[in-house]
């Protein structure tokens, strides 16, 4: 990776982290668990990495299998995470 490419990635990291710090404030306690669960589903974004690993990285058997393994796990994280968060939030509305 070239230095300038790395610097841009670090910019993205720093600004997004700052945004993450600022986004969360005064969250009502009842929303703590749904927020945790919802952001857990977002961290399933590693599914994008898993997809790439299944494809271009798949020249060797081991890395291909690891990629597919990661894809199954990340899908569980994403699908399960969003579904369970939605289920929780649906309950709040009824109250």
């Amino acid at each position, binding site marked *: 990776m070239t230095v300038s490419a790395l610097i841009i990635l670090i910019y*993205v990291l720093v600004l997004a982290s700052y945004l993450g710090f600022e986004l969360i404030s005064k*969250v009502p306690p009842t929303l703590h668990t749904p927020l945790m669960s919802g952001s857990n589903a*977002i961290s399933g974004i590693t599914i994008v990495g898993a*997809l790439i690993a299944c494809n271009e990285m798949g020249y060797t058997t081991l890395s291909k299998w690891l990629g597919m393994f990661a894809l199954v796990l990340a899908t569980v994280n994403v699908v399960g995470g*969003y579904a369970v968060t*939605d289920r929780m939030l649906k309950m709040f509305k009824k109250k």
Partner: protein
Amino acid sequence: MSTVIQIAYLVASVLFIIGIKYLGKTKDARRGNILSAVGMLIAIVATMLTIEVVTFLEIFICILIGSVIGLYYATKVPMTKIPEMVALFNGFGGLASFAVGLSDYFLKSSTSLESLDAVNLTSIILSVLIGGVTFTGSMIAYLKLDGKVSGQPITFSGQHLLNLVLLIAFIAASVFVFLDPTNLTLILILVVISLLLGILTVIPIGGADMPVVISLLNSYSGMAACATGFILNNNVLIVAGSLVGASGIILTQIMCKAMNRSLTNVLLGGFGQTVATG
């Protein structure tokens, strides 16, 4: 990478940001979750565009298996068991980042050793470390909440010293990986230590502190995804990962404050409790 995909990643990143913002507000929370799910779908579809058609079947099967498992547990689990579910899903996310990191390492060490530069190696090592700790840590949290392992803090003398020694050993092994990137034994050592560290840092924590730990592990899984983003040179992974990493830390702090505990207090587990009572 084509412009269309980059723009799709940008849209997805914005949806994640708005999603997290809304998730913190009672009346918008459900909408926020749906928005971030749409963002995820956009990111997945955009990535699929870069994939060769030959691998579509394998990918389809993997996604199908994952979706069935995820949906089954998300809909079947009783509401009281939700924190366990979150811990379990979070552990899977961590293990996925861990596996992507290793996958990239094995590919580059066997095909293009020169692309395994310092930035790449650092990102791979971090993704294995954070992903591994997230995985075993979340599994212990899951087992504790589920009552399969005692929910009480498990402590023994020299626990913190052992963690420190393991961390130093990890750093030392990482330095040797830089000197000899193809040495598989070293990679194996890194894998084992990171998995051990996850177990050891969560077993001393118990009882009412568990939700705080899950929130912290959730933050870690974001950081692991972020490290994966540096391996793959991928912006959407870095944005989503660092958003979750940072907001997770803040949420953890808010939860600690609500319990009138400090984060160090929670992390030191059993030790912290004796201080609190004495």
